[in-house]
């Protein structure tokens, strides 16, 4: 693999302009001061404990997601382009979801094969003809971006995947910033870095803007599967930051198509539910009957337009990896524009030609499950052993439609503290795009870093860490 694009240093080893300030600070700050600050960060994250912890049987063994103090810095100009690309993409995705559950114009126009949509397990027949406020489905979208050199462009941004169901991680973005400001206030004084702390306010405004018609002072709640869910900390964190109630299924009750929460002063109506529960578990009357997490009657109230669910039911149809390849076409179809952000070239293994090519080049590509997530069930060809490759080859041949493949991108790297000092490690970026009355986002997002040398998998479940993300204001 060729050397990857590095965010801080160019191919000649010169510091890029966006990092000039930071590099100067690094050069003039004694290493022992930096070491002390890093230890301080570790200690602080440990002390708040819960912050990055997964609840387990043993309180002492809670997992912390490693935090790296070298920020990922994006110039204002670069971000401008990324932001317009994200707006365009999320608008098209929302339009697409509305379309597939209504007139299905995109199918009629022959742009996407009907069977790919209608036979997709993520297509929710129950949503056909259901109207949602503002025709917004993906109120919160986490769009994963990576950066790599291409033949023509150095450090081009690519969309790796769209997360339109219940994207998580935004609490890390907020905690990372809080930590950096606490450890290195002088860095924030040296240059204008776009703030991200107002994300919870933006989220609350966004959720209130999609309340059912007629709710004057919408009551918003966060619905969590409960304290044993690995993202429970984030659910509780966001509820607290927004100043709304964190509820579980048992706290809600539906009467006459209206959703209420049980309070010590009686029932109180709920208008908007920011749910962090999958569609399948929302309502045992409509979906999985064995769900103890959901609220019986919720879906009927939803269809009657008495409550808003964010994200909407059925958004999975637009973020599955088989649909991903069609997003550029969606942008052309619904926005009448050329996509600003590119997709990573993708082979569909259900196509015989693509399958043949991928099987012949297995050691060079990345193979992913169409419905997989979290970095599980994927193959990274160049870093896999012969046995692993053969094992995966057999899996693909058994069920090709289950997989897609992409060239192994040399994901950009960012200097990162590792045991042996500072070394480049691969990163990605997940901005959070909010759609309601308007589309809004805080500059940047969550930068994840693969801490293992050479690893391209940034997921926290696979040993990834996080970094603060700075978008410079000028």
């Amino acid at each position, binding site marked *: 693999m060729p050397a990857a694009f590095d965010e801080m240093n160019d191919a000649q080893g010169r510091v890029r302009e966006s990092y000039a300030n930071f590099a100067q600070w690094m050069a003039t700050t004694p290493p022992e001061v930096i070491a002390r600050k890093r230890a301080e960060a570790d200690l602080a994250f440990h002390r708040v404990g*819960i912050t990055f912890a997964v609840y387990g049987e043993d*309180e002492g063994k809670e997992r912390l997601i490693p935090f790296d103090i070298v920020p990922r810095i994006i110039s204002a100009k670069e971000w401008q382009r990324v932001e317009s690309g994200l707006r365009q993409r999320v608008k098209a995705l929302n339009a697409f979801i509305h379309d597939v559950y209504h007139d299905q114009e995109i199918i009629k126009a022959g742009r996407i094969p009907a069977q790919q949509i209608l036979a997709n397990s993520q297509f929710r027949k129950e949503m056909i003809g259901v109207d949602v406020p503002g025709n917004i489905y993906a109120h919160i979208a986490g769009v994963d971006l990576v950066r790599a050199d291409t033949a023509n462009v150095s450090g081009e941004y690519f969309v790796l995947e769209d997360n339109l169901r219940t994207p998580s991680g935004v609490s890390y973005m907020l905690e990372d910033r809080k930590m950096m400001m606490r450890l290195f206030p002088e860095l924030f004084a040296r240059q204008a870095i776009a703030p991200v702390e107002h994300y919870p306010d933006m989220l609350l405004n966004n959720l209130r803007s999609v309340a059912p018609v007629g709710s004057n002072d919408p009551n918003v709640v966060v619905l969590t599967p409960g304290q044993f869910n690995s993202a429970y900390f984030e659910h*509780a964190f966001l509820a*607290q930051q927004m100043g709304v109630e*964190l*509820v579980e299924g048992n706290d809600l009750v539906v009467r006459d198509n209206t959703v209420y929460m*049980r309070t*010590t*002063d*009686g029932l109180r109506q709920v208008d908007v539910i920011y749910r962090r529960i999958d569609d399948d578990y929302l309502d045992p009357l409509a979906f999985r009957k064995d769900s103890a997490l959901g609220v019986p009657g919720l879906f009927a109230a939803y269809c009657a337009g008495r409550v808003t669910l964010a994200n909407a039911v059925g958004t999975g149809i637009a973020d599955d990896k088989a649909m991903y390849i069609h997003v550029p076409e969606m942008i052309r179809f619904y926005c009448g524009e050329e996509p600003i952000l590119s997709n990573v070239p993708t082979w569909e293994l259900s196509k015989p030609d693509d399958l043949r090519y991928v099987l012949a080049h297995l050691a060079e590509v990345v193979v992913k499950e169409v419905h997989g997530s979290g970095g599980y069930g994927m193959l990274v060809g160049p870093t896999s052993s012969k046995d692993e490759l053969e094992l995966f080859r057999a899996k693909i041949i058994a069920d090709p439609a289950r997989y897609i493949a992409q060239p192994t991108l040399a994901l950009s790297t960012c200097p990162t503290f590792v045991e042996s000092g500072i070394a480049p490690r691969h990163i990605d970026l997940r901005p959070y795009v909010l759609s309601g009355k308007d589309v809004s986002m805080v500059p940047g997002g969550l930068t994840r870093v693969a801490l293992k040398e050479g690893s391209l998998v940034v997921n926290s479940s696979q040993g990834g860490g996080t970094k603060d993300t700075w978008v410079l204001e000028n």
Partner: protein
Amino acid sequence: MLSSTADHLYWMARSVERAENAARMLDVTYNMSLLQRTAVDPFNEWRAMLSISGLHVDFETRYPEPSAENVLYFMALDAQNPGSIYQSIFKARENARAVRRTITSEMWETINHTWLEMRRIQEETIPEDGMPRFFEWVKEQSHLYRGVTIGTLLQDDAFRFLRMGTFIERADNTARILDVKYHILLPSPAEVGGAADFYQWSALLRSVSSFESYRKVYRDVITPQRVAELLILRGDMPRSLMACMNEVNRLIVELGGPRSAELLRRSGMLHSELRFGTVEEIFDFGLHEYLSFFLERIYELGDLVNTTYFWSATE
């Protein structure tokens, strides 16, 4: 406030209080059992302990005999006994964890620390002579919990539900402790008023930290009537039924709510009975009978708190 939050707070406080009172009850039983005498039944006190806790059936299925060692383990450390101190502390911590963002971090840390210690102690299995020290520790943890709650928590409805849990549980437990005398039969009626009798009443007073108060209030020998008066009717005794119902009744009035009418009525009735009752009436009625009737009604009151504020058992 969300009903489920109130529910967790209430049970968190009840569990802490239950652990403390179990320690008190075990402590008094332990002391009584040390009284050397030729007993009709060598396990008399321990049997009584199980019976007033209502846990004798569960005990008998798993233990051969109510020896001091068995009952102490069962009531203090047995993870399978839902009424053990170990389980109460576990429940307090589980409930606290569910409302971590409602309680203060100091409260959480206190309860969590108690639980971690409890787990360590349980693994060590304390020797019998270490039991009094263990009971002291449990009481200290409960004092600590109460102190940190009063010292750090905003006095809003969350605070009221916590206090409600504390005092409903304490009312129940004090009534049970007082009833222990009924369950411990003296070898012969002749011993009533004798040394053994005196020893038992004073151990009972000590178990609810009331021995010194008794001396202060009555400046006289210990009689059953006065012990009963002190622990049932005196509002200035912090563990008395009267003191508990003063709090419970006031909390219910303050909490109010659209569904609280029946709860208010029942709590008001129980409260005025204590307020205007006399110890003579109680003894005419029979102390054991009176306490049993009280326990029944405090249980109903707890049930009504559930349906009024937590919605459990409704719908």
